[in-house]
């Protein structure tokens, strides 16, 4: 029977949930195989130290320990993959899985122990003796560039890895002639992604065939497979990488990690399965960090506050090594220092800097939260300077509404947008009038608790592609396409195989909705397979909000191809011309005689038996698509929040938060809202609480969830969401992306609100994260300056 129900656009409950809710989801650490050994990594306690010697004798004496090796005991076929050399002359010292002569950050691996149990491996690791000669360390980007700074990689003679720049228009002339110029400085503190599932790896070798299966808590099994082949010399055809259920990534698991190569190499060397699961304490040191920039943001404008020029100078902390896309992370934001605004000239200069810290790479938003912080904070500063309201200054600077791709001053060609529309809607949902009234009342009576209102009208770019542009123009080593296969079983049940690797987004459900509508079947009749390089051999995985924007068009095209093949068979069976058929109500129907129909399950059965196929049509009902987008996609929106600030203690509280986003066509509103809320709360935590803080000698001070400031249920505010849709012109479905909008938009909204609350006291800037102590200090400083 034909399904009359359609699914796209509806909040279909998740296919993923039943197993995850009942504890039946299998994450990597849930798996074991017979004969498995445990691996533990010995890590440098020093941020910078020469390794004089590694002695594993005592470790080998620990009961249960099977083997122990120093870094120098390995010969790698190649270093860990770094896939984004953003400039031709970028300095990229090779990064091998273990340090051999110098440890360059606290947590850098120096030796590895393998044992019969988790406990024995850890005991063994403790027993390894490493003779360190501590060296001076540098953790801060500006200090690292200063004359005489300790060198992270001595042979480079500098801590600068690269400088990348982009200029559009005559920036110097525009700045020289503008009546208003402002220059702001921001520090984007370092973040620890903190997916709640720590990383885990299990490698099983087959010594007879030379094949290896690696279960891995990763966002990128396809990338890991290639990278492992390069690091170990084992051919890709012998490597099967499986990402089972993955407990969150936020970019931290799009990496290629030392432990993956080590576990694989040890499985080969010892001929036994190897398991490794990170502890949370290790996660703080050994899983890549995010953000960490020092920004100088300049705007040139006329007296009314109409911006003519943007100039940003960014120092980006790379940590001790360039990891998979470390240098590209700031580049992902490099076109967005103009936000959604127009201008005449634009310039961004990014300098990547080595320091003795954990490598920095993509963290939810990757480069775009940093850029958004700079422009959205600076436009508020400009508003104060020219005496305009933050809403008004944004309105006079927005690009006008457009439905066809339009160039921006930042060098992008933007798919579609109506920036006024999201702002209008956000103001309405927020009830700006009412809150401004409340704010005035508190100001007038000199309330201890002041209210501030902050805006962020962000624009971002995601859905990485097209391959030839990201490869040839931006020098990225990988591709930006995505793959899908739709396969009909004889009974009409469908298997969808995708090259993305969802890990919480709910993509299984969203993709199944698209396939179900395309084929006139139920969501429950679509099974989605992914995250296994043998099952889904082609694809570029999930990160950068690409699951919906790049993955869905591939899914849609594959399903459409299946339907087109089915049309030929249906016409043949119904003895009409293909043109006489129309697709309606979930079936091919003869025009004018809708009861004469064939459903996809019926055709699937015919295609399987092959008894009565038209000439030239092959049996089977299956099709694939490789979709390479023509452009990026450009979500945007307006976030407004009200923050209450206790002017005596510096404590803050988000009173009201409204997020209105345009993420293009929405497949499943429930999933979109979930992404927005989760991202916004993560971004609010970035603005208010979270910081990876190093002391002068390079010890990570905030090295536990508590010290770091991960928010719990009481800290998280309620987020009110709204949407506006201008379909993307990049793909036929009109989809933009939603995975990162929340963390991109929210930090400047919160910080702008705090500054607004305190502006009557003379506060003009607040450092991130705006902890009570920092807020209190800012108030005292302003008071001091006034006195």
């Amino acid at each position: 029977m034909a399904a009359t129900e359609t699914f796209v656009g509806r909040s279909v409950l998740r296919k993923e949930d039943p197993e995850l809710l009942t504890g039946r989801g299998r994450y990597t650490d849930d798996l074991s195989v017979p004969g498995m050994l445990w691996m533990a990594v010995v890590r440098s306690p020093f941020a910078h130290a020469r390794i004089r010697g590694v002695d594993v004798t005592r470790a080998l004496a620990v009961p249960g320990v099977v083997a122990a090796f120093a870094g120098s005991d390995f010969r790698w076929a190649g270093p860990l993959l770094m896939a984004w050399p953003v400039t031709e002359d970028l300095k990229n010292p090779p990064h091998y899985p273990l340090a051999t002569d110098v440890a360059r950050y606290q947590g850098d691996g120096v030796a590895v122990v393998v044992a019969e149990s988790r406990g024995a491996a850890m005991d063994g690791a403790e027993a390894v003796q490493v003779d360190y000669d501590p060296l001076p360390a540098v953790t801060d980007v500006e200090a690292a560039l200063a004359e005489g700074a300790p060198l992270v990689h001595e042979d480079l003679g500098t801590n600068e890895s690269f400088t990348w720049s982009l200029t559009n228009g005559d920036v110097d002339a525009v700045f020289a002639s503008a009546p208003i110029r402002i220059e702001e400085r921001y520090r984007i503190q370092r973040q620890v992604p903190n997916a709640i599932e720590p990383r885990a790896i299990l490698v099983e070798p087959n010594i007879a065939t030379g094949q290896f299966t690696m279960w891995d808590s990763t966002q990128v099994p396809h990338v890991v497979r290639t990278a492992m082949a390069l690091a170990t010399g084992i051919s890709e055809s012998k490597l099967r990488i499986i990402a089972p259920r993955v407990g969150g990534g936020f970019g931290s698991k799009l990496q290629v990690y030392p432990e993956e190569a080590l576990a694989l190499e040890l499985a080969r060397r010892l001929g036994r399965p190897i398991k490794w699961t990170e502890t949370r304490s290790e996660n703080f040191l050994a899983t890549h960090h995010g953000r960490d920039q020092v920004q100088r943001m300049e705007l040139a404008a006329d007296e009314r506050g109409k911006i003519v020029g943007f100039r940003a100078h960014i120092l980006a902390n790379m940590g001790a090594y360039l990891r998979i896309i470390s240098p590209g992370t700031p580049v992902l934001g490099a076109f967005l220092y103009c936000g959604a605004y127009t201008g005449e000239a634009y310039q961004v200069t990014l300098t990547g800097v080595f320091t003795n810290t954990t490598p920095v790479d993509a963290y939810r938003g990757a480069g775009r939260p940093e850029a958004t912080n700079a422009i959205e904070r600076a436009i508020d500063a400009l508003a104060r300077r020219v005496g305009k309201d933050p809403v008004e200054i944004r309105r006079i600077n927005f690009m006008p509404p457009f439905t066809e791709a339009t160039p921006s001053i930042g060098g992008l060609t933007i798919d579609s947008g109506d920036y006024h529309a999201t702002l209008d809607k956000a103001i309405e949902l927020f009830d700006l009038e009412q809150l401004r009234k409340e704010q005035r009342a508190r100001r007038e009576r000199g309330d201890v608790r002041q209210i501030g209102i902050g805006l962020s009208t962000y624009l971002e770019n995601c859905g990485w592609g097209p391959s030839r542009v990201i490869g040839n123009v931006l020098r990225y080593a990988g591709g930006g396409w995505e793959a899908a296969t739709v396969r009909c079983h004889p009974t009409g049940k469908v298997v969808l195989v995708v090259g993305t690797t969802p890990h919480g987004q709910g993509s299984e459900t969203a993709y199944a909705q698209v396939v179900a509508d395309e084929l006139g079947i139920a969501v429950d009749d679509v099974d989605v397979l992914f995250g296994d390089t043998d099952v889904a051999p082609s694809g570029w995985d999930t990160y950068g909000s690409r699951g919906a924007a790049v993955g869905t068009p591939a899914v849609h095209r594959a399903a459409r191809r299946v339907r087109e093949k089915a049309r030929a068979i249906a016409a043949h069976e119904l003895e009409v011309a293909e043109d006489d058929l129309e697709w309606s109500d979930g079936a091919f129907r003869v025009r004018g005689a809708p009861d004469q129909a064939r459903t996809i399950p019926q055709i699937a059965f015919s295609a399987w038996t092959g008894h009565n196929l038209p000439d030239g049509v092959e049996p089977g009902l299956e099709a694939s698509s490789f979709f390479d987008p023509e452009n990026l996609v450009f979500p945007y929106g307006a976030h407004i929040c009200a923050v209450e600030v206790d002017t005596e203690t510096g404590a803050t509280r988000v009173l009201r938060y409204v997020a209105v986003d345009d993420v293009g066509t929405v497949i499943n509103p429930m999933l979109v809202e979930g992404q927005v809320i989760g991202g916004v709360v993560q971004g609010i935590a970035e603005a208010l609480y979270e910081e990876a803080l190093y002391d002068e000698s390079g010890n990570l001070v905030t090295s536990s969830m508590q010290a770091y400031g991960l928010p719990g249920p009481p800290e998280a505010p309620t987020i009110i969401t709204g949407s506006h849709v201008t379909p993307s012109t990049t793909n036929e479905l009109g989809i933009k992306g939603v995975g990162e909008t929340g963390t991109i938009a929210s930090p400047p909204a919160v910080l702008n609100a705090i500054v607004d609350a305190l502006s009557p006291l003379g506060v003009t800037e607040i450092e991130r994260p705006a902890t009570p102590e920092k807020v209190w200090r800012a108030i005292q400083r302003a008071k001091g300056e006034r006195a």
Partner: protein
Amino acid sequence: MTRISLTVNGQRREADVEPRTLLVYFLREHLGLTGTNVGCDTSTCGACTVHLDGESVKSCTLLAVQADGREVTTIEALARDGELHPLQEAFRRNHALQCGYCTPGMVMAAASLLRERPNPTEEEVREGLEGNLCRCTGYQNIVKAVLDAAASGARV
């Protein structure tokens, strides 16, 4: 090795465990009950939450030997006869999970919260789940799900 005997999900279990074995690893690695997760080593995240004699505890903060003679319930025993528990239903209905890693602990903590306070306020739910961290959802839908389960009056 120490011999312990306890009831897990209604079944009597006897085992020899190393005295240093944490309850969470006993459940996961000795009994194969991998639904209970481990997210930290500082008793912060609550991913390991189970019920011990009906009260929620972080199973990474207890030794297996401390559960000797007692009754443990894990996420695996919450759904009965192929039917999701009302709280699990409410989590699904309200999209209260994304990656699902915090979920078993969150559901167990919420179940014991509702047992103590069948009709909590939003603030009480937030305070009650204070020891459980989620990085994906921003908590909003988790709180909504718990309130929804309470409102539906289902026995938890």
